[in-house]
């Protein structure tokens, strides 16, 4: 008979191996599904692989992965401190609002000098995304409200808030009444390095390094890690749990807000309703896949961006529907959840 036994200390080596195996399993299961649907599986994986070796397509993969990577990095901070932030999507939207707000302030009121524009937009979107996350965090700290619910519901509020702005006060006066903000002037677009992807990946690497430093070398990072393991221990050790929760969630939401800054300033060039197709949710899968390691977020995020890009190629080359890639993503997620299970428990053969 098989029996499940709880692993007391899941070792780093085992967890790495289990994740890797589950990742392979996802490829296998997806292949099996599409094989039975009559798809040429070899060609299917060649097209996906092609995205990562063709420079033009790889650039597109990076282009699409930046908002996912940034919000994943935000989630790393939240998840490590045991704060289940499902609200990266809403924090992205708030980041977009803040960045657009700065552009409007500049264009209509001439409030900010041009040279400081991008910095001001980045800082504003960080603070706005952070503040949005802080709402849920303070509700948790003060009233004990479950953050999974509040962060999720704040997403819908954020989306409707953007709707209100672009259908109302921020509607472009020269946009024929369509729902869009004014276009961002060139100096407010993220194109340093020649392409938004380059600017985006630079920011992402910098943020990943900061998250790494935060947990490796700072006191706050240590408190957050302890908090994530057990808030009782943290309290018993006399750490200021409330303050750390608030600070950690500010950072978490703030990084997701930077993702929103990239969406409006690097990808679209103005604020539009429903501008994020769910980057904040894909970020959850990426954070899980990368095992909350900030450095692994980068390849994991680019992999998911590559999957999205491959989705386009699969449609035009194999004439598969767009949902093909959604199926693949879902299988990956299920396999990771399975891996989590095997990391916590081990199967023991008993006679």
């Amino acid at each position, binding site marked *: 008979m098989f029996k499940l036994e709880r692993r007391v200390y899941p070792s780093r080596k085992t967890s790495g191996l289990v994740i890797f195996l589950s990742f392979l399993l996802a490829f296998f299961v997806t292949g099996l599904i599409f094989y039975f649907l009559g798809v040429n599986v070899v060609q299917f994986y060649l097209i996906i692989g092609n995205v990562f070796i063709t420079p*033009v*397509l790889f650039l597109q993969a990076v282009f699409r992965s930046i908002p996912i990577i940034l919000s994943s990095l935000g989630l790393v901070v939240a998840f490590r401190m045991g704060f289940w932030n499902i609200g990266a999507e809403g924090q992205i939207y708030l980041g977009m609002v803040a960045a657009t707000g700065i552009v409007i302030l500049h264009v209509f009121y001439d409030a900010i000098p041009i040279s400081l524009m991008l910095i001001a937009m980045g800082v504003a979107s960080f603070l706005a995304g952070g503040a949005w996350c802080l709402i849920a965090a303070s509700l948790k700290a003060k009233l004990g409200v479950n953050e999974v619910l509040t962060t999720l519901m704040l997403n819908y509020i954020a989306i409707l808030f953007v709707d209100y702005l672009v259908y109302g006060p921020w509607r472009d006066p020269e946009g*024929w*009444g369509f*729902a869009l903000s004014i276009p961002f002037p060139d100096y407010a677009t993220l194109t340093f390095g020649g392409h938004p992807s380059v600017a985006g990946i630079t920011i992402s690497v910098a943020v990943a390094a900061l998250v790494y430093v935060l947990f490796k070398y700072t006191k706050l990072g240590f408190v957050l890690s302890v908090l994530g393991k057990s808030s009782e221990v943290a309290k018993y050790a006399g750490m200021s749990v409330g303050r750390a929760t608030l600070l950690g969630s500010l950072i978490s939401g703030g990084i997701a807000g930077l993702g929103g800054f990239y969406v409006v300033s690097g*990808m*679209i060039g103005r604020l539009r309703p429903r501008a994020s197709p769910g980057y904040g949710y894909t970020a959850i899968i990426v954070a899980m896949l990368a095992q909350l390691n900030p450095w692994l977020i980068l390849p994991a995020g680019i992999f998911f961006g590559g999957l999205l890009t491959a989705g386009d190629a699969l449609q*035009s080359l194999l004439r598969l529907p767009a949902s093909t890639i959604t199926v693949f993503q879902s299988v990956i997620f299920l396999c990771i959840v399975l891996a989590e299970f095997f990391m916590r428990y081990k199967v023991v053969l008993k006679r």
Partner: protein
Amino acid sequence: MFKHASDMDKSALSGRKFSRREFLGVTKAAAIGGIIAAGIVGGAAGYLAKMPEVKEVTKTVTYTPPLKQMPIKVGYVYVGPVGDYGWSYGHDRGRKWADERFRNVESYYIESVPEPEVTSAIENLVAKDCELIITTSFGFMDGTAEAASKYPDKYFVHISGYRSGAAGNAPQNMSSAFAEFYQLYYLCGLAAGALTQTGVIGYVGAYPIPEVVRHINAYVLGAQYAYKKRTGKNIKAHVTWLFEWVAPEQARLAASALIDDKNCDVLNYTEDTPAVLMVAEEYQKKGKKVWSFSHYSDMREYGPTAHLTGPVANWGPIYLDFYRMVATKTWRSVDIWARVGDYMPWRWRQPIEKSTAGKEEGTVYLAPINPAIPEEYVSLIKQRYEEMKELLFEPFTVEGHDPEGKEPIRDQNGNVRIGPGERADRNALWSMDWLVEYIEEPLPK
């Protein structure tokens, strides 16, 4: 894949050259051989036995290889899945329609493309060597213009926006196109005014943008015209906003609320599913006379009793037009605003008895007209439809509003918006941000 095809073509081309050269060589050799042979044989034997053979060879030299034209490659970018039975489905139907007629075309599409990622989808189609790329959602506008300046040797068409080379705010290799419905909504309004018993009509709107606002106004103006003519009273209209393009469940609730709470009995809508029509059909089954319309495609099957008529679009003729421009290298940037009459084989108005209202033609046309509409008003709808083909009749005029042709069109605050002798031009229609006086709810701002 395409690269491979082009290589193949090149080798085919050089193959043709080679065989021709070889052919000429053979001919030459045969001719020389023939002459020598003729000289020897003729000189010796006195007759020209080989001549006919030489003649035959000379004849085949005039052979020229047939001209082969490569199929044009067209790529489409859709915002939703093609199976949505609404917007993207309609565009995919248009693509198939144009492909079927043009034949010498290979088309590709990428569906469910999120707005920020349109450039990525376009890159993918460019990599597939598509010469013509058509993006079919308003949110793709800036991305399309960006791609157009990046790839000056490709052609781009954007649907439902305002940027094109013709409009002067995009490169010359970008055109824009839109299938305009306000005239058809006016005709739906005539049907509504002819049938309403309560004198109250309803509208379920997607978003308060000018496109939807002018459709609502046109619908209410038509209803006012017919209702005033019939009863001498003014119409009353209610509008509910969904803030979604596709939201069948919310549309159902909104439609039921308009019927039960506001006493509306003819409902029109801008929502990409047949939900509102289905609600009307349910009330019909329960014995209450409630009517509704098709939207973007013929939806009669969802409400066989309740369906009156409705605006239908076929994007095919617009796409076919662009295919032709690209294939014949006669591209010029255009800003197409297809209305009744455009792309129709017969642009001139027909007498009422021969009217094509309710039949498929051109880009925008009416769904089949329900015989439940009184004969007098069916004739009126047909007459107006035919006049619209030549732009002789315009809904946003005093004549479209008042059967006596006197009352100006007023907004909800009582301000005169269109007076006698005036008609709304394109700019007024494209930036319409006011509702006509008969509508109860204010426009959300």
